[in-house]
C-alpha cells in the first residue's frame, strides 16, 4: 500500500528505518500489503489522519479506534464487500479441511480438566471403543463443555486465522507436534517460559462448516479471505502475501530456508466449534528460541525470500530507495 497522506508516509519511512526490528516490521507490512482495496485503504487512512505523530500514536489509534469499530464486531469489515480484493479467489472444496490452534488454558480451567484428562477423553471419543474408565457419552459431554468454552470466548468473534490441513500430516505424526505446529503456524505468542507448558487444541473443520456459519450473517459476503495488515493488531510475525498467491503464508518460526514448511493461511468468519472439530490436544513446551537467535529480522528476510520465490516476484517486499535502515 502506498499511503495517500504525507504524514503517514513520513511516519512509515521513519518506522522502516527504525533500529527496532518490530517497528520496522510493522512499517514494512503496511507497505508490502497488496490486497487492501482502494476504498478500504482510503477509509482507513482518512480516519487515521491526525494520529501520525509517531508509531505509538498510530498503533494506539489502530487498537483503540479502528479495530473495535471495524474488526471486533459480529461481522468484521474483513468479510464484507469493502474487502473484496482480499477475498479468497480460488475455488475451495467444501470438503477441504481447515485447521487452527486454540489455547486451552481457559477452557480447561473452566471445565475443571487437566490436559491429560482431556487427552484421555478425546481418545475415548475418537476411538469410539468401550473405555474402561469413561463412558463414551460422558466423554463426549465433557468435550462439548470444552468446545462451549472456546465458543464463549469474547475474542472468538475476531477474524480467525486458519491453515489448510493438507501437508500437516507428517508434522502431526511427531510426538512434539504441538511445538512443530506452533512453529509452522508462526504463533510466536505461544511462547512458554522454560519448564512451562501451554495446553493447545488443534481444531479441524471442513470449509463447509465455515460457509454454513457465514450464511447466517447477511453482511458476510466473503467469509474466507487472505489476511491483510488491517485485519488485526500490527504484528511482526506476519507478512502479507503477494497478490499472486491465493493464500497467505505463515511465518515459519523454526526457519525455512528451503521454503517447505509454510502453511497456506486464511482468515475466516467465526464458527461455533463442535466436538468433532476437536482434532488433537497437546502441550507446547519449547520456547521460541529463534526470537533471539537468529532473531526476527532474519526470520522475516528468509520468509520474504520465500514469498518472492513462490510468487515469482523479485520486487515483492522491497522498500522504496532510501527507506531502509542506514
Amino acid at each position, binding site marked *: 500500500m502506498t499511503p495517500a497522506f504525507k504524514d503517514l508516509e513520513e511516519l512509515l519511512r521513519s518506522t522502516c528505518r527504525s533500529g527496532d526490528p518490530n517497528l520496522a516490521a510493522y512499517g514494512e507490512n503496511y507497505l508490502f500489503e497488496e490486497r487492501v482495496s482502494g476504498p478500504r485503504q482510503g477509509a482507513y487512512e482518512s480516519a487515521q489522519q491526525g494520529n501520525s505523530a509517531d508509531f505509538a500514536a498510530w498503533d494506539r489509534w489502530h487498537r483503540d479506534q479502528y479495530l473495535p469499530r471495524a474488526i471486533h464486531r459480529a461481522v468484521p469489515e474483513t468479510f464484507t464487500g469493502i474487502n473484496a480484493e482480499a477475498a479468497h479467489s480460488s475455488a475451495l472444496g467444501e470438503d477441504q479441511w481447515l485447521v487452527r490452534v486454540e489455547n486451552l488454558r481457559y477452557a480447561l480451567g*473452566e471445565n475443571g480438566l487437566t490436559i491429560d484428562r482431556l487427552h484421555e477423553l478425546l481418545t475415548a471419543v475418537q476411538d469410539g471403543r468401550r473405555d474402561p*474408565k469413561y*463412558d463414551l457419552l460422558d466423554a463426549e*459431554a465433557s468435550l462439548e463443555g470444552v468446545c462451549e468454552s472456546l465458543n*464463549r470466548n469474547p475474542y472468538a468473534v475476531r477474524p480467525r486465522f486458519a491453515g489448510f490441513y493438507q501437508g500437516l500430516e507428517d508434522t502431526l505424526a511427531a510426538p512434539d507436534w504441538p511445538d512443530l505446529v506452533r512453529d509452522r503456524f508462526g504463533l510466536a505468542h505461544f511462547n512458554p517460559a522454560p519448564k512451562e507448558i501451554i495446553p493447545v487444541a488443534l481444531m479441524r473443520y471442513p470449509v463447509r462448516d465455515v460457509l454454513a456459519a457465514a450464511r447466517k450473517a447477511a453482511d458476510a459476503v466473503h467469509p474466507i479471505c487472505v489476511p491483510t495488515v488491517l485485519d488485526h493488531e500490527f504484528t511482526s510475525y506476519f507478512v502479507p502475501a503477494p497478490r499472486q498467491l491465493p493464500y497467505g503464508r505463515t511465518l515459519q518460526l523454526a526457519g525455512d530456508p528451503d521454503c517447505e514448511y509454510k502453511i497456506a493461511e486464511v482468515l475466516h468468519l467465526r464458527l461455533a466449534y463442535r466436538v468433532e472439530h476437536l482434532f488433537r490436544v497437546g502441550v507446547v513446551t519449547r520456547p521460541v*528460541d529463534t526470537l533471539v537467535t537468529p532473531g526476527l529480522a532474519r526470520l522475516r528476510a528468509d520468509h520474504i525470500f520465500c514469498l518472492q520465490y513462490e510468487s515469482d516476484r523479485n520486487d515483492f517486499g522491497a522498500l522504496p530507495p532510501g527507506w531502509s535502515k542506514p
Partner: protein
Amino acid sequence: MSLSATKPLPNDWLERFRAEPQPALDDLLRGLARVPPYERATPSDILDRLFGVLAADDPDRQRLDSTLCDWLAGRRTCMTPDERAAYGLSRFVTETMDALSAVWLLQLPRSGAWIQDHYLELDQWAAPLRLSESWDLPRALAQAGALTQVDQRLQFYWLRLCKEAAQPSRRAMIDPALNGLSRLPDTAGQGASPQLIAGLARFGAELESNPRDQRDFLRRWRALKARFPRTGRVWQELWQGVLKNRQFQDRPFVAWLTETEAVLRTESRARPVSLPSKQQIDALFQRLQRGERESVLPYIQKMLDGCEHYAQGTGDAHFFVRSACNLGKDVLAWAPGHALVWARDALSWSPANGYAWDLRARALRSLRRPDLAQAVYWEAVRRLPTNAVVRTQLALLLIDQGREPEAEALLREAHERDPSSAHVRAELARLLARTGRETEAEALLRRTLDLCEFSRNPIVLYTFALLLVAWGRVEEAGKLRDLYVRRFGANQWSETLSGMIAAGAEGRTEALYHLAKRDLHGEPADHPIAADAKPADWAVAREEQAAAPLRRAAGASQADLLFRVNDPVSAERNLADLLADDPDDLYPQIVWALHVPERRPLLAERYREALGTLSPHLAGADQTTPAAHWELLGETFPERMGLIDLTRLLRAGADEAAAARLEYWIVGGQGDDYLRARLLAQRGRDGRIDPGNQELQALLTDAIRAEVDLGDRVLGEAA
C-alpha cells in the same frame, strides 16, 4: 541451554508497568498495549505469559495482583451508563471478562479475595451485561466467583443459581453454578459432593419434559461423571436422597437419570439422608404450646439443622423453609432473634417465600428496628406484588409515620389483589375511619359482613364493633359483640368490647385508644427471653451490614408509590438522589422510565444490547421500539413471552402473532396467575385488552418492577 532460558526478551511494557502500574495495566487490558511478540494474544494470555511462571512472592506478580484488584474495583464506576454505551458495551464486557479470567488463571490471591468479598454486589451490577453467548459478563463473573473460592459463603448463591439456570434465558449459568458447588472448599468428597448433586437436582427439578431440557441436563450430568470419575456405588449413594424425595418424584429429570444410569435404578445399602419425622416435629410444636421456651429452642435448632442438612443433600429445601417459618412464627413473641435468624436462613433457600419475608420484617420490628423492617417490607412488596400480607404490613408501618396517603394506596391495592383478606378489609376500614371517611369505612365493613366467606372470621366483626363504640353507637356495637360471641365464643376480644360498651363515654375513649394501636389484631407482645439476646444481636448486626442495598431498593420502591399517589416531584427527587449516588443502579432508572415516558428512550439506548435482564427493555419500551427488538426479547427470554407481548401491546400495539400468543398465554399460560386473571376479566368485560386501561398499566408497572433482578444482597447473608 537456549538463550531464551536465561535471558528473557526485553519488554518495554513490563518496564512501564513497574513504573506506572495502573495506566500500564489499563492499557493492556483495553488492548492498547503493544507487547511483542504477543501482539495477537489476548490480554489475559499476555499476562499469563509475563507473570504466569513467577513465584507467588515475586514483586512483579504481587504488583500485578494489587493493580488488577484496584482495576476491577474501579471498573464499576469508571464510566457512567451513557459513557459505557458510547465506549461500546461489547468492548467494555470483553475487557472486564478478560480481567476476571486473569484472576483465576493466574491464581492472584488478593484479586480473588476481592471478588469473593464483593461478589454479590458485582453480580447485581453485571447482571444486565450479557450481550450474547460470547459477551457474557454475568457468566464470566460467576466463573471467577466459582474459581476463586476459599470458603463456603457462596454455597447458597450457587444452589439458587442452579434453580434459576433452568430458565432458558439463564441456562448458560448452570456451568458456573455447578463449578461453584464442585469447588466449595472443605466439603466431604471434593468435587462429587452432596452439594453438587443437590445443585444438579435443583436444576433438574425446574426443567420441562422437552428434548432441549433433557439434553442440557444429561450433558451436565455426564460431563460431571467424566470430570469426577467415581464408582457406580458412590453415585448411587449420592443420588439416593434425591431419587427417594417425593417433591422430585414426578419431575422428568428423575426418569432421564434412571433411564441412562442402570445403577441408579437399584437401592443403595447406605442410609439415605432423611428428614426429621413428623412425630419429632409435632412433639416440638406441642412443647411450644405447653409454654416451654428456652428449653425447647436447642431442640428446634437441631431439628432445623436436620432439615437443612437434608436440603443440602437433596436440593429440596421445602421442609426446611416451611419449618423455619412456622417455628419462627411460634417463637416470634419471645424469641425474635431466633425468628430472624431462621427467616434469613429460609430466604437463602427460597427468596420468593412470602412467609419468610414477613417473618424477617416482623422479627426486626420486634427487635425495635422498624427502619429495617420497613426496608424489608418494601422489597417483599416489590418481589411479591400479589401478596396482601406484606403490603398490609408495610401500610401499617407507613401509618406509624403519618404517611396515610401512601398507606391507603397500598391497602387499596392489597384489597384489590386479595379481596378474600379480612385483615386487609379491616385495616383499610380503620384507616378510612381514622382519616374522616366513616361512611366509606362502614360501607366496606357491612359489605364484608354480608359475604358469607367472612362469617367465620373474627377480625372484621371486632374492628367494626370497636369503630361503632368509637363513633358512639354502642347499641349497634353491642349487637355485633353478641354476634361475635355467638360465632366465636367469649374471649379476650369480646370481653374488651363488653367493657367498653358498658363504660359509656369512657368506653369511647378506650375504643379510640385501641383503634390507634398499630397491631389491632395481633397477639399481645411479650418480653424476649434472655437466651434470645445473642442471636438477636448477631442477626441484627448482619441485617445492618446488608442494609444499604435494601434501603436503596426501598427508596426506589417508595418513589414508585409516590408517583402513584400523585406526588411526582418527591418521587423524582428520590430517584435523582439515588442515581446521583450510583448512576448505574438499574432499579431507580426503571422506576423512573415506568412513570415518566420521556425517560424511556434514554433507558432503551443504554441497555439496547444488554440482554442479561429483561426489565430495562420492558421499562424502556415505547412505540419506537423496533419490531426486531421485540422478537429478540422473545428469543432471549422465552419464559417471559407473555409479559413481553403484554408490554408490547400496551406500549406499542402488538402485531397479529403477538396478540395470538398473548391470548394463548392469558388462557393457558404458566405463572403470573393474578395478572393473567385480571387480563382475562378485562377482556371478558370489554371484549378486548384495552391499552388505555389504567388498571392494566398499573399491573404492568408492578410486573416489570418485580422483574428487576436486585441480586442476592437484599436477602441478607445466610447463617
